Every structure is written in C-alpha cells, then in structure tokens.
C-alpha cells in the first residue's frame, strides 16, 4: 500500500499542480500560448533527462550535463563555422565524446562517474566563457528550429526511442540489472563495463540534441549555454520519482513527469506574479516535500 502511494505521488503532484494553476491564474495557465511556452522551456531538460535515466539506472549520477552542453556547443560551433546542420551533427559527436570521457574515468579510473562529470562541469563552463569573451558565436539560421512543433517532434522522437531502448532491448534491461546487482550481472555473462559505456554514449547523444535545442532558443552559443542543466535535470528526475540508486525500479516516465512538474511549477508561480527569487524558494520546499514522500527508502532501512 505504501509502495503504491509512493508510486502515485509524482503523477498526482503533476495533476494537482495543473488543476491548481488552471483555477488560480484567471485562465492564463490554460492558454494555448502558455502551454506551448512550457513545452518549449521543458524540451531541453526533457531530452537530456531521457539519456540521464540510462546512466542513473545503472547507479551513476551525471553532473556533467551543463558543462558538457557548453563544451560541445562551443566545439561544434568552432568546427562547423556556424553551419547549422554541421553544428547539429558535431554537437551530438562532441556530446558522445563527453559521455565517453565520464565513462572512461569511471570504468578505467574506478571512481564514481560524477567525478568525471564534475571535471566537465567546470572545464566546459570555463571553455564556454573564454570562447564567448573573444568572439560572437551566432547561428542565426537556427531560428528556423525555434518552433513549437519542431520542439514537440524532437521530444516525441527522443522520448519514444528512449522508451523503446529502455524497456525492450538488452541495453535498457542490462542497465537496470547492473543497478540492482553489478556482480550478479557480470556473473550472468554480461559485460558490465560495456553496457555502462553504452549508457554514457546514449546520454551523450541526447545531450547533443539538447545542445541544438538550446542553440535554437538563444541563437548563439554563450558563456551561459546549458547553465544549470545538470541541476535542472537531476531535480526534475527526483520530482518524477526516479529510483536514486537505479536498478529495477527505475522508470523512464520519471523523465517526462518530473520535467513537466518542474517547469509547470515554475510557470504557474510566475503567472501568479511571484517574485522569481521567491519562486526558487518555493521550488525547494516543493522538491523536499515530494521527494520525502516518494523516495524509496528501503536501502536505508536498518532491518529489511
């Protein structure tokens, strides 16, 4: 019973927020324009979150997202010379390189992957700020992509493919087994290192796509590209009820539920006319409340 409540909380929280904001914003929340707005804001984090779920399923945390987004955007811009299509391909390629960096540090260095992630977070930010200080990295053509339907299509495809891989292929299934018991996974004839690396590659691909979406919203790579992406994604996934230690309880729907909750909360409160500084405080309180109800604590129990 408590298990069921725990599983329902993230969805219930999302529905309650939707109802609450529909009733209290004089209809401003439920306008087509506002809903479009929410989807476009949420898209970047949602695409990145889909890849992050694979990494979290095998029990790693990824702190690299923001830095990796900045780094791959800068490198993709410099190598593509401002050509949009080349930028998209290169952003994905460099995104994968960032994922592989975390994977190599984790697998060969035998340290938790978030260590490599932290390196990328700082290095990526540094590179982006240095590069943006000396040159203007505009890709004006990207305005063509800054369209609700394009964003919706990208999100649908990324989530659909992610859902399929996560639930119906070896890659997804093995992530969950590794998160549950890495030793037993290896002793079942599965190369744990290989499948962990694949998770980071997937996370790199979604990051590259997220970088492209970020570019099409701001039309330029700047020192702030991808800022706070890792925190947004991790907070959103927690709101979506993701299993913190990965394993069989991990569900990819946490990405969609969590990211929507996160951005709707933001949006609704701004519609209320709340001071943005207070919005952050309310977000923190909401986060604490949801997570403390929905998180699976069995691993912290003294006697199981």
């Amino acid at each position, binding site marked *: 019973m408590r298990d069921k409540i725990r599983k329902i909380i993230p969805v219930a929280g999302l529905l309650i927020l939707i109802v609450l904001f529909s009733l209290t914003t004089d209809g401003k929340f439920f306008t087509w324009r506002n809903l479009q707005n929410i989807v476009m804001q949420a898209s970047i984090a949602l695409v990145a979150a889909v890849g992050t779920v694979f990494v979290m399923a095998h029990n790693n945390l990824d702190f690299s997202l923001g830095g990796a987004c900045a780094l791959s955007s800068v490198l993709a811009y410099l190598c593509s010379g401002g050509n949009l299509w080349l930028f998209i391909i290169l952003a994905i390629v460099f995104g994968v390189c960032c994922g592989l960096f975390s994977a190599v540090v984790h697998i060969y260095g035998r340290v938790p992957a978030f260590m490599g992630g932290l390196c990328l977070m700082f290095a990526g930010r540094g590179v982006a700020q240095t590069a943006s200080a000396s040159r203007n990295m505009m890709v004006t053509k990207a305005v063509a992509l800054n369209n609700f339907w394009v964003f919706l299509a990208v999100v649908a495809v990324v989530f659909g493919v992610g859902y399929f891989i996560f639930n119906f292929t*070896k890659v997804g299934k093995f992530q969950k087994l590794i998160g549950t018991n890495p030793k*037993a996974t290896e002793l079942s004839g599965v190369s744990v290192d290989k499948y962990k690396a694949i998770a980071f590659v997937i996370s790199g691909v979604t990051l590259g796509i997220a970088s492209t979406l970020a570019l099409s919203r701001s039309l330029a790579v700047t020192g702030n590209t991808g800022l706070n992406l890792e925190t947004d994604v991790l907070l959103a996934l927690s709101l979506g009820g993701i299993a913190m230690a990965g394993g069989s309880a991990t569900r990819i729907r946490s990405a969609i539920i969590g990211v929507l909750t996160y951005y709707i909360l933001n949006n609704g409160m701004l519609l209320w006319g709340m001071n943005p500084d207070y919005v952050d405080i309310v977000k923190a309180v909401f986060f604490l409340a949801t997570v403390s109800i929905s998180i699976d604590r*069995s691993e912290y129990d003294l006697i199981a």
Partner: protein
Amino acid sequence: MAETILKAEHMFKEFGATKAVTDVTIELRQGTVLGLVGENGSGKSTLSSMIAGVYPPTKGQMTYMGAAYKPGSVLEARKAGIQYLTQEQGTIDGMTVAENMFLGEEDSFGKGGMVNMRRLIARAKEILNENGLAHVDPSQPIEKYSFEDRKMIETARSLSKQPDILIIDETTTALSKKGVERIYEIIAEQKAKGTAILIISHDLSEVQHLCDEVMILRDGVFIDLLHGDDINPDNMRQKMIGREFEGSYYRADFECTHGDEVVLSAKHLTVDGAFRDISFDLHKGEILGFGGLSDCGMHEVLKTVFGAIKPTHGSVTLTEGGIKIHNTTTSVKHKIAYIPKDRDKESLFQPTSIKDNIVASSLDKIRKWIYISPRAERKMANEQAKIMEVKMQSVMQMAKDLSGGNKQKVVIAKWLANDSRIFIMDCPTRGIDVGVKAKIYRLMEDFKKQGISVLMVSEEMMELIGMADRIITMKDGRQTGEFMRSESLSEADIIQKII
C-alpha cells in the same frame, strides 16, 4: 524434566497474506538443546526471531522466567539474557574489533560520553583469549579478519555475559570445519552451565548429534516433537517433507560413468594468492567435484574457469571450436553456467521480478533484431519456473520474497533457459532444505543423461562422494589427490588429503 526458562504459547506470525507461523507452542528448558528443523519457509527462523525480539508476534504470548515477556528489539532481548546468532554477518565494517564487541555498552567503559578505549580494548582482549581467538587484535578494524573470524568474534561477544538462552540460527553453514567444531564446543559448555539452547539447522546429522529434542515444523505448523532414538536423519527428513523419499537421496549407482569426449580443459591454472598449477579435463556427462577446506582455493578455481577471475598463468579451453575463456561473456555465450556460493550477493537480483532473473542470460534467444517482447520473456520465464517447480504466485513476483530454496531454483532456471551445456556449481545446496536438495541432485543426474557436464565444489563431503564421478582434492591452493567414484570411498579418505 529440567526447569522451563521460556515458554512461547500459541504463536502466530503473518506477513501480509503469508502465514509464516501458525499456532506453535515451544518451550526452552535449562541445560536442554532443542533442535528446530523444517524445510525453507517452514517458519523456523520466524519463530526464533520472535523469541529474539526481531519482530513481535501477530498473536501469542511468551513467558520468560515466570514473567510476561515482550521484547521490543534485539537489544532488549539481549539485555534480558537471550543471545541470537544468525548465519548473516552481525558485525559492522569500519569499526574496530573491540568497538564491535561492546556496541551499545560503551557507557560501562567511561563517563560523560567519553569512552576509555584502553580499558575497552583490554577487556576485549581478555574475552578473545578465553575464546581461542588470541590471534585477533581488538584494536584493528574488523574487516581485516575473515568472515569466519568475524563470526567467532560475534560469538565470543554474545557469550561475554552469561546468557540464559542461546539461539543458533544456521550459524555453522558458513563456517569451516574448525569453526564448526568450536561452535559445538560452545554448545556443550553452555549446556553444562544450564543455558537453554535452540538450534536451527539444515544439517540433519548435526541436529542428531547435538540435540536432546527436536521440533519439526512444516508450512508454519507444528508437526512433531522428537526424543531419543526418533531423532535420526531419515525420520526427520520424512516428517519435514510429509512423505517418503522416492528412491535414494544421492546417486544410487557407484559407477564412474561419463563420455570419453573432453569438453573443457584447464591447463596449469594459477591465480596469485589463491591457487597454483591446477590442471584437469572435464568430460561429457561427467560430474567432477572439488573438495577441500573453504580457503583452499577451490571456489576461486571455479570462478577462474568461468572467466570471472583472470588467471596469472594458464588457460581454460573449450574443446568445441578451441575457444579460450577469458571473460564471463564468452563462457555464457558458449553455454557455460555458473552458480555462485553466495546466492544473495552474486547470483540473485533481489528487488527484481522472477521473470527478469530467469531471462537475464538468455535475452539473445528471444531477441528479434534488438526487440525483446515482454510476452516472449514471460513465456520463457514461466516455462523454466515450471520445470524447476518454483513456489510463487507469478513470475512478476519479486525474487527477494522467495525462500532460500526457491531462490536457488530461480538461479538454476536462469541457466536452464540458456540451454547450458556445462554447469559450474559452487556449493549448490548451501542453506537449502532437503526437498530442494533432492531436486537438485535429481537434476544433476538428468544432466548426466543428457551429456551435460558438471563442475562442482562442495563443503559437504557426503554430497561430493554421493554425486561426483571424480573428486579432486585441494589443500592450500594445490591439487593433492584424485578419487574415482566407488562404493568404498569414505569421508576419511578425502579428509586425509585436505587437512
């Protein structure tokens, strides 16, 4: 009759819809050793856990030394004089031996929150010496010592204050011969001192040897209380499963029978720090057993053959295709199965469905390009669970909710699903009741008939002698002898080579 120390009357315990114990009455008397036997899931551990304060009964009442007894926790029961030794590790890594020994009692070694470490260590040393653990340094971190030493430290701790009741729950299954003997000595000493002792064990000859009376449980219900000559393995086994065994327990034949064809050969295998220069050939349809003490390196030999440990020297080769094994992926791809000794840590995905456990190694069989259909998974899992007769509500149930024997059935089902041709089994019947044990032995005989080979390690000599076509003995990491299956082969022959 000796004086009753604790009486638990009409005890019931339910976990949700599961009735673990139903209306059982048990009496523990001064200086008397009571054995509690039954299959996995018969309610033995549940009953003793209630007495030890792990959790309260759903219904029932306990009287201890004439007064009503309702322990709120293990610590409370311990303070009242009831000590509970389990098969799991009861010590905490990262703390010293001495700190572990006086956990919760630090106050008696100082005041105002300060602990006098010197006195604590001195007292720990005293207790360790009294218990034949003079080699243990109490100021060292506990994880420096082997599982066996830690178990003995825990035992010494629980006896540091004379208990009135001592409960020993399958403690001996994880110990070597020396440790087991030490536990037997302790039981004899405590019995002489008038302690009431409750023993839970799957080893029926151990029960026969130690107990004054034996209570049999089946499906949480009291079946019988045995005394004197009625306490013998055959009688107990029958009462436990509620029917007679068909045929014999182990193999009935005494022939060394197998094909001539070599399926796998290990050449000069060495793993530094574990074993040296081990070579053998495994034949088609052969059961090859390794015997030795727990630390002789035999467990590591099996892991190396499976590809889970990289050998320092030597190689493992499959005859078919001349495949060299260097990782677990290769061995599973070529139909080798590995059943580890430590089921919970190394082979089972506990908070995961039985289905996902069973299909884990065979996804390539049901995969269509990259798509794995949930229906095909369920079908495969259902088929294999049926063959192994796993007691469950559905394959979607969590593996952690199964009893030990059924967990092992799930692990075996995983490898049957992959059509394994070589089974590497490390103590396959450890901590498992007779019913499932017999099932595993019959399965091994079937394997022989189908030409499937088995490489097995066992710490039970009788099991090796009873099942293996050939036994290789090991001592201190070296091969010391080889025995062919024969009727005259005795435990003594083997023990001579391993000690």
